């Protein structure tokens, strides 16, 4: 149970349900939102590019967290569902549909495809379900490579023109930042609230003990499919934003390795918490960026070492981070954050 500040009482049902509970938290939240959307006026394109990439990843990882963290269903196909979103958006834009309409459509189409690949979840779980979702990771890119190449561009893929809104062209990191971060904020609020709804509680019940949940009257199959839909919907949105970000998409961009990275982000951030995907994504994407920039510096410092060896710091750091978290903090950064908050509120007392 969360430790509250002294004097913070529930004075109404609405107050009991509130996420933001007092004036101080409101001020902090508004200040954070204002700062978040003011960043493009102060940061360079490189930093904004990293933030955009983090934002897109957060959306995809939120989706995976709904499936894995809330419902306990393992998926190795998140990148493939992103591909569905990306191709849907790019194909619709190519057909003359506005990107702003294509964006939710991408989510919906990916969600429906997610339901399709969620069907085996009725009969199988754990590793077996992971293998079933792995099939999505194989079939979906194959589909875009080989089927209706007139629409999906075959192997070379599709190029997407930057979206427009009036006179604004979303072709720079600064302009793309706004739709991406807006989607991140909306998706984060939705993910936070899903866990507090009847559906969310049912998902948590299935995760904790599916048999007990069934006995309590929670129909497993439909709830699992809803979780698959939501997860893939988020991935679809992320995919559409990725198409805007990359402008050129092909099936190779949505690899199994990407799905594994998203899984790693959920684990590092902490499963079953809306904060987890944010912290996990920032941590791993940050680590990736740092190691990428570190390799050329080390290469100059130690010219006798091969560049490839130094550049391999990135994949190594990912593996080491994942291992350390699994061993020492399996509940992830969000749990560590909760402990930190509790310690701060209880200081100077240890307990």
């Amino acid at each position, binding site marked *: 149970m969360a430790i509250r500040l002294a004097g913070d009482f529930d004075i109404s049902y609405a107050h009991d349900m509130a996420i933001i509970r007092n004036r101080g938290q409101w001020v902090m939240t508004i200040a954070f939102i204002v700062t978040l959307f003011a960043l493009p006026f102060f940061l360079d394109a*490189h930093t904004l590019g990293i933030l955009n990439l983090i934002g897109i990843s957060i959306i995809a990882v939120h989706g995976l967290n709904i499936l894995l963290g809330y419902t306990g269903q393992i998926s190795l196909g998140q990148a493939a569902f992103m591909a569905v979103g990306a191709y849907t958006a790019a194909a619709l834009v190519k057909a003359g549909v506005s990107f702003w309409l294509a964006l939710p459509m991408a989510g919906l189409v990916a969600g429906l495809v997610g339901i399709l690949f969620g069907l085996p979840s009725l009969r199988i779980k754990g590793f077996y379900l992971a293998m079933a979702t792995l099939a999505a990771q194989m079939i979906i890119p194959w589909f875009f490579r080989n089927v209706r190449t007139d629409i999906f561009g075959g192997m070379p893929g599709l190029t997407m023109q930057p979206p427009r809104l009036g006179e604004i062209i979303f072709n720079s990191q600064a302009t793309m930042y706004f739709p991406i971060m807006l989607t991140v904020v909306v998706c984060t609020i939705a993910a936070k609230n899903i866990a507090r709804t009847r559906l969310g509680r049912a998902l948590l019940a299935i995760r904790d003990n599916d048999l007990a949940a069934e006995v309590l009257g929670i129909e497993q199959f439909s709830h699992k499919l809803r979780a698959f839909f939501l997860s893939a919907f988020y991935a679809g949105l992320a995919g559409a934003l990725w198409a805007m970000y990359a402008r050129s998409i092909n099936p190779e961009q949505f690899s199994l390795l990407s799905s594994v990275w998203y899984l790693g982000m959920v684990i590092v951030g902490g499963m079953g918490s809306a904060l987890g995907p944010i912290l996990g994504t920032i941590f791993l994407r940050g680590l990736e960026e740092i190691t990428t920039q570190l390799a050329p510096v080390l290469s100059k410092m130690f010219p006798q070492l091969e560049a490839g060896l130094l550049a391999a710091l990135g*994949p190594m750091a990912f593996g080491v981070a994942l291992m350390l978290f699994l061993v020492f903090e399996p509940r992830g950064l969000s749990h560590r954050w909760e402990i930190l908050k509790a310690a701060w509120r209880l200081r100077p007392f240890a307990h």
Partner: protein
Amino acid sequence: MKKIVVLVTLVTLAMVVLIACAPTPTPVPPTSAPKPTDAPKPTTAPATTAPQPPAAATKPAEPTKPALRSKANPGEKITLYHLGDVTGPLAAITTPLVSGFNDGAKYLNGKGGIRGAEILVEWSDTASKVELGIAAYNRFREKKPLIMQMYGSGETEALKDRLAEDKVPVLTAGVSAKGSYPPGYVFAVVPIYTDQFGLFLDWLVPNWDKVKPTKGQGLDAPKIAFVTWDTAFGRALETPEVKAYAEKKGVKLVAQELFVAGAPDVTTQILAAKKAGANVIYTNTLAHGPAQVLKDAVSLGVREEFLIAGDNWSLDLSMLALAGAASEGFYGVFPNLWWDDADHAGVKIIQGEFTTNARKPAERSVGYLLAFTFVDAMRQYIEKTIDRVGFEGLTGAAVYETIQATPELKPMEGVQTFDFGKDKRAPSRARIVQVQKGKFVYLTDWMTAPDLRPK
């Protein structure tokens, strides 16, 4: 114990962050090399073969050129940027590019840099991930690059429009048709894959009776199967232009068999090609692709039933090492000179620098050779631009204009030849080579590839 581990982890991470944020140390010019103001003199190659520094077009650079350096800007520096997959599935081929690039810059700095300006190099690994390519480009873009080098088709294609918007010309080794055309700021360093295949057909058809397999089926005419990677690179020949050209040449494309990059077995694909009636296998991959095809063809006992060939990137020493004796008789399209061209002035320089810098034998690859050459190409294009607009007018857009307006450029005395134009974004020259006794032997003189760019 747990606290100690956490503490150590945090301290390590903090150190990593601090190192990453530290300013990039300015590379110290090699002590053995002359300062830019000194008269250039060769440091490694023997006197009889010491080349003059290559400069505009095909002429050697004149020693007086560094005088153009402005005295008001004694510390002039020009940074050349390159990004590519130093890690990831293609790393075996691409890693030596970094060493080649560094050694090339070091050598040219010893020769006076770019009109006296010191050449600096910055690179970034993309691990074959487009998102890392975009991030690296954003980082370099802030520094207003004059010209960049890229290696992968993926990042080239993704960045193509941005490069045009930002007016940053790029030389790319990822020579997919989608990345190179319609013409923009991307210039391919070798003929695009479709053109290479067209050139291969131009050679194959008239020579069929001489080179056709000794055994096999339907040997009256070439019947080609693509046994290649299931990637955009591997499947770059799936274009209507290629089909139409093969038909025009009387060549049948009978099958396309795909495999995953790094697959340890392609026997199924080879047998499927045989079943489809193929007598030629063409693979559009890096070196380990044909190595696997060749080894498995031998193990199946069908090597003599196929003429096996590949694109330029399939021709590397690593292919010879991986395939061993099975590589004998392999054909390929070769748009540059090779390490064995020991009498060539440019190759001699590269050989000398490779030895001087104590590079490992594994780095003696196509990547090192060409990266060294790319640096010289960039230097020449920038020098030509300086001659035209001066140091003050030096921008990416100005270099782009120079590249388009230079009908022929021979970096490193002609290790490669670039002949870009207003609507031409890739070279056309190449030769056909064959592996004979573990070496690449030229079978033809320079040929001009047909134009099979996408319509």
